[in-house]
């Protein structure tokens, strides 16, 4: 008789999930997400679309910060490069959108090698500052290279048509974003259980120890930057298509802070955490809107005129609050709830 839940081979050990119910629920969620455009109204569908492409970018940052432990404050740089990679290919030269998405990944990935190079010497705060510097340099470079990028006047982007399918309607664009989000999630989850992911996490936990175990620090740190930049770039392209207009001003430094907030709120290094964090952060303005509508007129007036500032303050408060009171983030809370649910009424 089995006396516990034993793993008998490596395959079982690294399987994505060993629980039938998790697999069933994931499939059900997938079906629900595919069917969502039939049910949701335009506003809600727009929100879910934003969540989906934000998720792609946040998962990209998670590979770098959550798995490999390299801090980047310059991810908005990759985002803007991805958007321009797509916009220049499709918006200016009128090439196939698929090529556009490919360029949206490759251009930031190349930049990732350049930005990643200092990471081989620098750690922690120094790396954060270097990446931040790169984000500003990239912005200026795009503005200066106006013969390629139209400079400060920006590029208009129509919704793409691929393989005879038009992504003009909101529902179709939603499915496109869903496809990329699921792909990004699959990549993130599968990296984690591969040799590459284990190498990343070894570098995060102690890079000198990792090196002495035979992990090539240079190769893996650069790989982390490249993969992260690639995914973030795709998110940038989707963001650009969503906005239908790409300029440098559309990608403020604020997006980096939003991405950081997602990771911190969700729980660093966990794909589920990133999903939960993305949902919370994207819906934050909606949530505060609802909360404030319950209060008096004065608060609503502040919300109407200074909505952006109120939202930013909330980002700050939420980042600090989670770091201070629950560093494991939403995923930690979720695990606690699960444990309580299973063991109730016993403590453990």
């Amino acid at each position: 008789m089995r006396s516990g839940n034993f793993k008998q081979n490596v395959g079982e050990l690294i399987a994505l999930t060993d629980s039938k119910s998790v697999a069933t629920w994931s499939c059900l969620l997938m079906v629900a997400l595919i069917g969502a455009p039939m049910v949701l109204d335009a506003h809600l569908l727009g929100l879910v679309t934003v969540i989906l492409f934000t998720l792609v970018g946040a998962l990209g940052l998670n590979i770098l910060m959550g798995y490999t432990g390299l801090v980047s404050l310059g991810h908005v740089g990759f985002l803007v490069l991805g958007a321009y990679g797509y916009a220049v290919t499709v918006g200016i030269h009128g090439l196939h959108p698929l090529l556009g998405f490919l360029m949206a990944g490759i251009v930031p990935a190349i930049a990732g090698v350049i930005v990643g190079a200092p990471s081989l010497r620098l750690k922690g705060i120094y790396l954060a500052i270097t990446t931040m510097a790169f984000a500003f340099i990239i912005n200026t470079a795009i503005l200066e290279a106006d013969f390629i990028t139209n400079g400060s006047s920006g590029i208009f982007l129509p919704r793409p048509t691929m393989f005879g399918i038009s992504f003009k309607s909101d529902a179709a664009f939603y499915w496109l974003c869903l496809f990329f989000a699921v792909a990004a999630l699959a990549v993130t989850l599968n990296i984690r259980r591969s040799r590459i992911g284990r190498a990343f996490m070894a570098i995060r936990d102690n890079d000198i120890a990792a090196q002495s175990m035979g992990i090539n620090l240079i190769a893996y740190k650069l790989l982390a930057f490249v993969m992260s930049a690639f995914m973030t770039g795709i998110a940038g392209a989707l963001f650009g298509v969503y906005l239908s207009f790409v300029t440098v001003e559309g990608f403020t430094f604020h997006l980096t802070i939003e991405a950081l907030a997602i990771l911190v709120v969700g729980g660093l290094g966990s794909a589920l955490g990133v999903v939960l964090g993305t949902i919370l952060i994207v819906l934050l303005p909606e949530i505060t809107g609802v909360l404030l509508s319950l209060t008096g007129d004065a608060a609503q007036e502040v919300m109407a005129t200074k909505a952006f500032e109120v939202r930013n303050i909330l980002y700050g408060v939420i980042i600090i609050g989670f770091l201070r009171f629950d560093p494991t983030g939403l995923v930690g809370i979720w695990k606690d709830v699960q444990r309580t649910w299973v063991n109730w009424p016993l403590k453990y």
Partner: protein
Amino acid sequence: MNYLIQLTATGIAIGAIYGLIAMAFALVYKSTGLINFAQGEVAMMVAYLTWAFAGQFGSGLIGVAVFTIVAGMVLGLVIERLLIRPMMGEPIFSIVLVTIGLAVILRSLVLLIWDASPHPMGIEAASELIRIGNLNMRAGQVFVIGLMGALLVASWAFFRYSRYGIAMRAVADDDRTALLMGVNTARVQAVAWAASSTIAGMAGVCFAALYDISPDIYSIGLKAFPAAILGGLDAVLGSAFGGIIVGLIENMTGGYMSSTIKEISGFVLIVGVLMIRPSGLFGQREIERV
């Protein structure tokens, strides 16, 4: 030639402001090992508080100066007490993220309380022209260079002779041993935060007096990063020197090249410095034990 001298003089003046903020970075880094990403925002907040004070009670120079120092100290102590001290023992990265959160909050608070448009600071004395030879300088620019000189001497003396300065160096060297030797590390950190916010606040007020007050002032914090890194993050005096160099480089690229390149010249400089000499010109090399 005259143009070059003029650029140099104004470069040193703006560099002195960056230098002050860089000193503030270095003070916090030296005593707590973390970078306060909200340094520029603290400077902006103090500048706005001072502006509100000057609007209310008149802009007498002594009153403004005293208020700036008090506001800076109080703000620094409050931040240290509410946000930084409870995080003691957490990884440095988490505390740095807290300061990023603080930066966002302060930036939005300024916009929420005041507005986004620039206002004159109302200190006329700062913009009076002074002629030195062929050189036109504003009184505020001369003042800020003098202020940085004075603070350089003061902080040198502080670290060399005062009990707190010596305690701070001890904490920077090894906080656990310092604690065992009876140094109150928590109080040393509080003093460092108060001092750093005061210095940053002075820089913010000087900047606002010279170039009007607006919610973009926080960007002097970003500009001071290169200065602090160039000088060495743990070298308070070196950072001030780094500030002057960054100010000069910015003004030269702005004067002879283009204004977009001026904006990023500091960042290009950091990337270069970090690649070649990560500890900066005057910083101590970090040696990690395995």
